[in-house]
């Protein structure tokens, strides 16, 4: 092994960032390019072997700060000021050679999407050992031995041979662990984890999270752990730094941040999942019944729904929970008629709905509205908010002129947005506002049921919280029922009256919320429930030891 000749100051911190200022050039439409500041004079320090969590919403600058420890800026991002002191020297003064020498040696990076971050043309092993060999940390044989040991530690299947595979031959959760092994292979002092579990299913996330945590503990490496999910960060970090709009909000020990937050913004983040929702009585008879529905893609080849039956009660919320591939969105497509079921029937208000969308009456279409996950592609970018909300009014009720405008204004009030938004285009709205406009469009049809397909998944936690509260309020006012599709169990607890848990196209558990969330559980529901990160220190260890069923991805 090559001798380590780095200057080390045993007393100072490993990483000391002082007054970091990061700027980017933006090209706004119809205006001259200008420079905006992404990170405003943020300082942080990290001791050897410690983990600092960086948390914040999108645009908080957390990834940008993380990458600055490698003197790297994406796209037009530039480090404009401040000092980045790593192992006792300012890396910005090291020049290109100096920066290249530290990347992959002193600091390594784990990306959000390992699937995109691995080169599809090379075997995993060649990529894992590349940095070690490049920087002379180890010979090829030694680096490969070390890689296999890391694969074992990260509990990857077949650790001796997995390195011989290509990235596309390995699942997402496993790739994320291989990427962690790649970062650890050259024995760096610091690893930047950039949302490493965000793209994974919840039952896979917990395994990867546990593997990362063990690896950090056993190798004694320090880490910057970046995430938008405070509960996740709390499991792995010694300290947490809360960021917003590129500025520091609060920085403290993990226990202090989640138990005694000092800033209002932090406490909002901590209590984000705590919406009290009283389950409604299941008394009334269902107005929409899905009976033994089976549906498939590809001309019957790929069965995505198997014999599914659920009921929706007037003015209540049925939450359909499952991971990717569980068929939950397909259920919505079957109910709306976009994917006509092969077998089974859907009855709506006492009559059987035609399977095909084209055969349904206008009234049936009106009473069944839908809201999408991605609000920005759910609205025509060339139409104004007024047109978007006004169209259902024209289309279903023949409203026009002033009557329609007044109604649009009323709907805008309902979604807590003002009249001023009527002439705006979707691109001029924030993520939360876009989703609100979509809600107003659905409401305009005076529906009895709104299908909500992952409507909060693409939003930051606080914004998502606002949307959930709005939906609950509207339900109380209008008596509309929701079919709420989500992968997020915390959301389910906040909004559902009854719950259907789906797994590989089947409903594995179904009933009122109180019953579904009470033991005894079936194996899958148990796995799912135990995988949802809780804002508790030590939750991860408890959850792992209590696991009864292997993760669905493995």
């Amino acid at each position: 092994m090559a001798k380590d000749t780095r200057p080390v100051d045993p007393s100072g911190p490993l990483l000391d960032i002082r007054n970091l200022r990061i700027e980017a050039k933006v090209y706004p439409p119809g205006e001259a390019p200008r420079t905006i500041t992404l990170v405003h004079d943020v300082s942080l320090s990290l001791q050897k072997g410690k983990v600092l969590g960086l948390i914040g919403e999108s645009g908080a600058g957390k990834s940008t700060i993380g990458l600055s420890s490698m003197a790297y800026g994406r796209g037009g991002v530039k480090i404009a000021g401040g000092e980045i002191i790593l192992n006792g020297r300012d890396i910005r003064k090291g020049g290109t050679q100096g920066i290249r020498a530290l990347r992959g040696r002193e600091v390594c990076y784990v990306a959000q999407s390992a699937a995109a971050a691995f080169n599809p043309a090379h075997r995993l092993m060649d990529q894992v050992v590349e940095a070690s060999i490049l920087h002379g940390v180890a010979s090829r044989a030694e680096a490969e031995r070390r890689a296999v040991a890391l694969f074992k530690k990260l509990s990857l299947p077949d650790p001796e041979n997995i390195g011989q595979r290509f990235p596309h031959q390995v699942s997402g959760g496993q790739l994320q662990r291989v990427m962690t092994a790649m970062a650890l292979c050259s024995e760096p002092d610091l690893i930047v984890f950039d949302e490493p579990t965000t793209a994974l299913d919840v039952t896979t996330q917990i395994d990867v999270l546990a593997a990362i945590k063990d690896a950090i503990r056993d190798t004694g490496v320090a880490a910057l752990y970046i995430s938008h999910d405070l509960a996740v960060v709390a499991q792995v970090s010694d300290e947490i730094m809360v960021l917003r709009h590129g500025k520091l909000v609060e920085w403290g020990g993990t226990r202090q941040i989640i138990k005694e937050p000092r800033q209002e913004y932090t406490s909002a983040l901590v209590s984000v999942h705590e919406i009290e929702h009283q389950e409604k009585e299941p008394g009334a008879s269902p107005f929409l019944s899905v009976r033994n529905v089976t549906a498939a893609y590809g001309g019957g080849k790929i069965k995505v729904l198997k014999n599914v039956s659920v009921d929706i009660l007037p003015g209540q919320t049925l939450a359909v929970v499952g991971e990717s591939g569980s068929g939950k969105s397909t259920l919505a497509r079957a109910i709306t008629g976009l994917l006509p079921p092969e077998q089974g029937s859907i009855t709506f208000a006492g009559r059987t709905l035609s399977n095909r969308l084209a055969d349904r009456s206008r009234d049936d279409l009106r009473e069944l509205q839908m809201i999408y996950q991605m609000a920005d592609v759910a609205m025509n970018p060339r139409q104004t908010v007024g047109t978007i909300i006004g169209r259902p009014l024209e289309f279903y009720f023949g409203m026009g002129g002033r009557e329609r405008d007044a109604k649009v204004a009323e709907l805008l009030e309902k979604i807590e947005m003002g009249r001023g938004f009527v002439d705006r285009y979707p691109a001029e709205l924030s993520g939360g506002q876009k989703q609100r406009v979509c809600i107003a469009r659905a409401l305009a049809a005076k529906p009895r049921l709104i299908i909500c397909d992952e409507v909060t998944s693409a939003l930051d936690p606080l914004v998502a919280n606002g949307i959930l509260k709005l939906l609950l309020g509207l339900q109380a006012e209008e008596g509309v029922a929701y079919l709420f599709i989500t992968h997020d169990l915390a959301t389910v607890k906040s909004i559902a009256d009854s719950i259907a848990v789906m797994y590989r196209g089947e409903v594995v558990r179904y009933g009122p919320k109180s019953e579904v969330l009470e033991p005894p559980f079936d194996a899958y529901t148990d796995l799912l429930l135990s995988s949802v990160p809780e804002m508790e220190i030590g939750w991860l260890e408890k959850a792992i030891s209590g696991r009864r069923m292997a993760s669905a991805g493995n």
Partner: protein
Amino acid sequence: MSSPILKLIAQRVALGLLLLLAVSVLIFAGTQILPGDVAQSILGQSATPQALANLREELGLNDPAIVRYFRWLGGILTGDLGTALSSRQDIATAIGGRLWNTLFLAFWAAIVSVPLAILLGLLAVRYRNGWIDKTISGLALASTSLPEFFVGYLLVYFFAVKWQIFPGISTVYDGMPFLERMKAIALPATALTLVVLAHMMRMTRAAILNVMQSAYIETAELKGLSPFDIIRKHAFPNAIAPIINVVMLNLAFLIVGVVVIEVIFVYPGMGQYLVDHVAKRDVPVVQAVGLIFAAVYIGLNIIADIAAIVANPRLRHPK
């Protein structure tokens, strides 16, 4: 090389052959759309009924179109391309030497333009948004707007007339010494190169840029690799397939560009032969030459697709 790849390649080749068959139908049909018939158009409005009847008999025009098509196709499959109406020559014999001339010209144009385009494309990516990139892009934009004959006659005007370096008319003959022949095709080959260069370079630039913006390039940068190593180890293996694709598309483009260039330089190739016989309304020649051009074009596209299949790690190493 595993069997799924061979199967895909076999499928692609079979599809290409099927396409070629359909193209032959289309080319044949394309010469049948005339509101009178071919005989009338050959002889003109003033032809006597007797002459028309004779010609119809001779061309077999009294048979139904489908019979004539299969007769024609059968001939092609046995190497008989028919007889030219205007000269009474056997078409296959007349084409032989000309096909060789055209391929010779296209070959040298490709030998020069392909490496040059890839090199310039790489330079444009390396110095992206710098003056080299902007100059190259600007020239590319301009040269896609230039008609072939503008480029061709400019070359003739300066190199052949003003400075008298190369001949303005590219006479070649059998048994011509190699260097003489190269001198004769210098100007048409240059013109062809200029015609395809800009387009090929622009597409190469786009293909490489697409690869360079992938997340795995960032990973390589964050491992501390030098820019040269990043291109060599991480960008190049993924850029081969798109670049081969670009090259093949442009070679197909070059094959077509040959038609006009040959006329400019009076070069005895397939293009000149085709144009002459279109003017003479010599349908059998036009059909035969049109089919050969289409076959080359389809063949190049098949090669591009096969290259993409072979270079794709997902297909080479299936799950």
